[in-house]
C-alpha cells in the first residue's frame, strides 16, 4: 500500500508519448532506448520496492553528448527526467514516474584514466564502485567509500547519494573522496567542477552536487581520490550480552580518541541472517556483535586492538575473536555487506538509515525495539556504529498490505526518534521518495525553502527527479 504520493503525471507529456519516443530514438544510437510498455516494467522501481511507477521511456546513452542531447530535449518540452545508476537505492531515489524519461548511465562504464602520481582515477558515471578498487588493487591502491552494495552500485549513484560505507569512519564518505565531476545541467550545458587541483575558490558547487539525488543535473564523469592500501587489515569480532552494552562500547572507543577503520554492529537476528549466508564464523551465542577493523603494520594493529579490548572489557565483552586468515576476513565482510540481501531469505524488509550522535546509540536502539514491538513487527539491526549510522531492517510480509503499512509507520517513528535524538533522517541512503514527507520533522519551513530555492537555481522547471527529496506541499510555484 502506497502512503507517499508521486507528482501527478503531466497530461501534456503523456499524450505525446509516441512523438517523444520517436524524437529520443533520433538522439540515441540503436539499442539505447527502451520504450515498449512491457520492457519498461523492470525499470519501475529500484531496491526500495514498496513503490513502483513504470516510466515513459528509458534512455541508455553511451556518451556525455548523448546525455546532454536527451536533457536538452526533455528540458525543452518539460519532460521529467529520472537519472539512474544501477538502481540499488534503498530510498527510492531512482524510482521513475509515468511521465518521466529514465536516464540510465549503465552503458557508460569506462575507466578513463588512472593517475598514480596524483592518486586519482577518472571514470564514467556508470562504473561500479568496486571496479574502481579492482582496477587499481594490484598496484596497491583502493577507492575508500565502500557502500555495502559496492559490487553493483555505480559511482554516479554514489555521488547522487553521497554514499558512505563501513570504512568511511576513517576515510570519509563520497564527498570527502570526490575531486571533480563532469556534469550535464538540465538544459544540456556541460560543466566541469573541481579536478585534480584542490579547493577552487568560488562557491563549492562540487560539494553541493554531491548528495543532491539527481535534482541538480546528471554527472557523467567523476575524478576520485585513490588511497594507498594499508600494510595490513584485521577485522575483530566482539560479542556482547546486550545491544545497549555494545552501543555504549562504541561510544567509549571513539571517546577514547581511537578511530579504527570501521566499527560495525549486528544484533542477534542480523548475526543469524549473515551467518546463514556467509558462514563467516560469527559468534552465535551473543545478543550483539561489533566488527572492529584495524589496519597498519602488525605492531600498529596489535597496539590499537589492545586498547579496544580493554574498553570492551569494561562493557563485559563475552567473546573476542580475531580473523585467522585473509579468507576469513573476507567472509566476515562478505556476510556484513550482504546483510540486507540475505535478509530476503527470511522476510521482506525496509531499511532505515537514521544517524544519531554516538551518546544516543543505546537509547535509540532501545527505542527502536520498542517502536517495532508496538507495531507488532520484528527488526534486525546491522549498521555502521562508529559514526552512529543506524540501519534497522524492519521485517514484514510484502504480500500483506496491512503488514506493509505497519512497517512503513514503524519506520517513520524510528526516523523521528533519530531526529529527536539530535540526529538526521538519513546518513548515506538519501531522502529519495521514502523520507520525503519526513523532511519537515528535521527542517523548518525556512530551512527547506532555502534548499528548494537553491534547487530551483539549477532546475527552475523542477523536471529533474521531481517527486523526490522535498515534500510535495509547499514547493515554490513553477
Amino acid at each position, binding site marked *: 500500500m502506497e502512503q507517499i504520493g508521486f507528482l501527478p503525471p503531466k497530461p501534456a507529456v503523456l499524450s505525446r508519448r509516441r512523438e517523444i519516443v520517436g524524437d529520443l530514438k533520433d538522439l540515441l544510437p540503436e539499442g539505447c532506448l*527502451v520504450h515498449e510498455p*512491457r*520492457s519498461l516494467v*523492470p525499470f519501475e522501481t529500484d531496491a526500495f520496492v514498496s513503490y513502483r511507477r513504470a516510466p515513459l521511456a528509458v534512455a541508455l546513452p553511451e556518451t556525455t553528448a548523448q546525455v546532454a542531447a536527451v536533457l536538452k530535449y526533455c528540458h525543452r518540452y518539460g519532460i521529467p527526467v529520472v537519472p539512474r545508476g544501477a538502481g540499488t537505492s534503498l530510498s527510492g531515489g531512482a524510482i521513475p514516474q509515468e511521465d518521466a524519461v529514465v536516464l540510465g548511465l549503465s552503458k557508460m562504464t569506462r575507466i578513463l584514466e588512472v593517475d598514480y602520481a596524483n592518486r586519482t582515477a577518472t571514470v564514467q558515471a556508470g562504473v561500479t564502485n568496486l571496479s574502481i578498487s579492482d582496477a587499481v588493487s594490484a598496484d596497491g591502491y583502493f577507492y575508500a567509500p565502500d557502500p555495502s552494495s559496492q559490487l553493483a552500485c555505480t559511482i554516479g549513484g554514489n555521488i547522487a547519494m553521497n554514499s558512505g560505507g563501513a570504512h568511511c569512519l576513517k576515510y570519509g564518505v563520497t564527498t570527502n573522496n570526490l575531486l571533480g565531476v563532469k556534469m550535464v545541467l538540465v538544459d544540456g550545458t556541460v560543466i566541469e567542477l573541481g579536478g585534480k587541483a584542490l579547493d577552487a575558490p568560488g562557491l563549492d558547487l562540487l560539494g553541493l552536487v554531491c548528495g543532491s539525488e539527481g535534482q541538480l543535473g546528471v554527472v557523467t564523469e567523476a575524478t576520485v581520490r585513490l588511497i594507498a592500501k594499508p600494510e595490513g587489515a584485521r577485522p575483530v569480532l566482539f560479542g556482547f550480552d546486550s545491544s545497549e552494552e555494545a552501543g555504549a562500547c562504541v561510544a567509549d572507543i571513539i571517546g577514547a580518541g581511537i578511530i579504527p577503520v570501521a566499527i560495525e554492529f549486528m544484533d542477534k537476528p542480523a548475526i543469524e541472517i549473515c551467518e546463514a549466508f556467509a558462514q563467516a564464523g560469527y559468534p552465535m551465542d551473543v545478543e550483539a556483535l561489533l566488527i572492529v577493523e584495524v589496519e597498519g603494520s602488525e605492531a600498529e594493529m596489535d597496539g590499537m586492538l589492545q586498547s579496544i579490548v580493554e574498553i570492551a572489557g569494561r562493557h563485559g565483552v563475552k567473546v573476542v575473536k580475531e580473523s585467522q586468515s585473509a579468507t576469513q576476513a573476507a567472509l566476515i565482510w562478505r556476510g556484513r555487506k550482504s546483510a540486507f540481501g540475505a535478509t*530476503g531469505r527470511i522476510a521482506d524488509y525496509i531499511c532505515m538509515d537514521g544517524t544519531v550522535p554516538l551518546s544516543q546509540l543505546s537509547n535509540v536502539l532501545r527505542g527502536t525495539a520498542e517502536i517495532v514491538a508496538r507495531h507488532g513487527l520484528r527488526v534486525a539491526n546491522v549498521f555502521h556504529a562508529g559514526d552512529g549510522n543506524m540501519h534497522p531492517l524492519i521485517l514484514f510480509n510484502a504480500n500483506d498490505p496491512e503488514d506493509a503499512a505497519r512497517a512503513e509507520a514503524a519506520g517513520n517513528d524510528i526516523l523521528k526518534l533519530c531526529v529527536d535524538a539530535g540526529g538526521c533522517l538519513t546518513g548515506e541512503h538519501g531522502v529519495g521518495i521514502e523520507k520525503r514527507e519526513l523532511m519537515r520533522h528535521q527542517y523548518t519551513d525556512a530551512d527547506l525553502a532555502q534548499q528548494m530555492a537553491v534547487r530551483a537555481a539549477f532546475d527552475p522547471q523542477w523536471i529533474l527527479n521531481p517527486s523526490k527529496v522535498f515534500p510535495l506541499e509547499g514547493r515554490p510555484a513553477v
Partner: protein
Amino acid sequence: MQTNFTPEQLADPHVATSEKILRKCVHCGFCTATCPTYVTLGNELDSPRGRIYLIKDMLENGRPADEEVVTHIDRCLSCLACVTTCPSGVDYMHLVDHARMHIENTYRRPFKDRVTRNLLAAVLPYPRRFRLALRAAALGRPFAGLFRRVKGLAPFAAMLDLAPRQVPKSSGSRPGTHPSVGTRRGRVAILSGCAQPVLKPQINEATIRLLTRLGIEVVAPAAEVCCGALVHHMGREEQALESARRNVDVWLREIDNGGLDAIIVTASGCGTTIKDYGFMLRLDPIYAEKAARVSALAKDVTEYLATLDLPEQEPKRLTVAYHSACSMQHGQKITTLPKTLLKNAGFTVRDPAEGHLCCGSAGTYNILQPEISATLKARKVKNLEATTPDVIATGNIGCITQIATGTTVPILHTVELLDWAYGGEKPAMLVS
C-alpha cells in the same frame, strides 16, 4: 518482493515454485554486477534482475511470451553467476527454466529461428548425427563469411566457425566395463555424453585410464542418452525429461547390478543438469524418488577424484590457467577442488581476472547469440592470456571448444592433465 498471483494460478505447480522464488528477491541489484550480458550490454533488461521482472510480469498476467521477453531471456547464458552472487538465495536457475518452458509453449518463433533450433535439437544430442554434421561442416566452411553477412544466418556461420578442422576418430570409451587395475577400490558409471565424445574423445579416455589405474572399475552403460541439458535450455521440457527418465533407468539398472559409488560426469554442463534430475522430475510420481537418487550420485570427475586422496607430485614446470566453467563454479559450486587437484599434481595454477564471467559458450549460446558470445570470448581469452599460461585447463567441453577458437594457448580438460601427472601419457596437445 511482493507478488500478485491468484490461487488458481498458484494451483499450477510450476507457477507455485516460481512464486516462491520471486518472493525471495529483494531487488537489491547485486546480480547485475556479475551478469555477463549486463556487463556487456548495459541494459537492465539483459540482467538477472531485469529478466526476473520480465518473467514475473509475464507469469502474473498469465500472458503468452512476446518478442521482447523472448529476446532478453534468449540472451541469458544460464551461466548462473547471479545465483552465486545473490545474497537472498533466489533460485534463478529454476525460474529461467520455467520461463523458457513457458516461451516454448506459448511463443511461435520466426521461421529461421525455428529451423536453427530444430536442427540443433535434432543433431547435437545424437553423436552419430553430430559426427556426420561436422564432416558436412568441413565442406560448408567456405560459406561461413557469406552466412555471417546474411541476417538470420549468423548462427550457421557460428556453427561453421566452431566446428573442428578435423573430426576425431570415434571414441575409445565404448559402452562396456573397464575393470580396475589391481585391487578394486570402487565402481562408478561414467556419462559417455553426446557432443563431447565426438569432439574430444580423449577426455573420457583419460578419465577411464586414470580411474582404473587408481583401482576404480568404470562402467559406460549402453543405452544411455544425452543428459538433456541442450534441449532443456531451449525450453523443450518434454524432450529433456524423456532423456532424464531414460538415463535414470539406465543408471538404476547399474546400481542394481553391481552397485555404483558415483556417476562420473566429465562435462560440468551435463553435471549441473543431472544433479538437477531430482528437481526436474519432482512432479513425476514414478520417477521423482528415483531421479533424486541418481542426482545424489552424480559427481563431477574432480569431486570424485578428491575423495581418492591422490598423492602429492613433484612440481612440474608448467603453468596452468584454470578456467572455471560456469556450470562448474555457479551451477555445481565446485570452485577450489579442481585447482587443488592440479596443484597437488605439481602444476602451477593461476586464476584469471574476472573468473566469474562466462566465456560465452553456454551450450548452444555461441551458435544462437554469436555476437555477445564473441565479445565474451574475447574478454575471457584476454584475461586467460594475461596469466601467461603454458596451458589452459577447464572442466567443460563447451568452454574448450569456445576458447580454443580464440587463442593459440593449448586448452585441455583438467582430467587430461591429472591423467598425465598420475602415470598417463603426456597429452598430445602438449607434445611439441
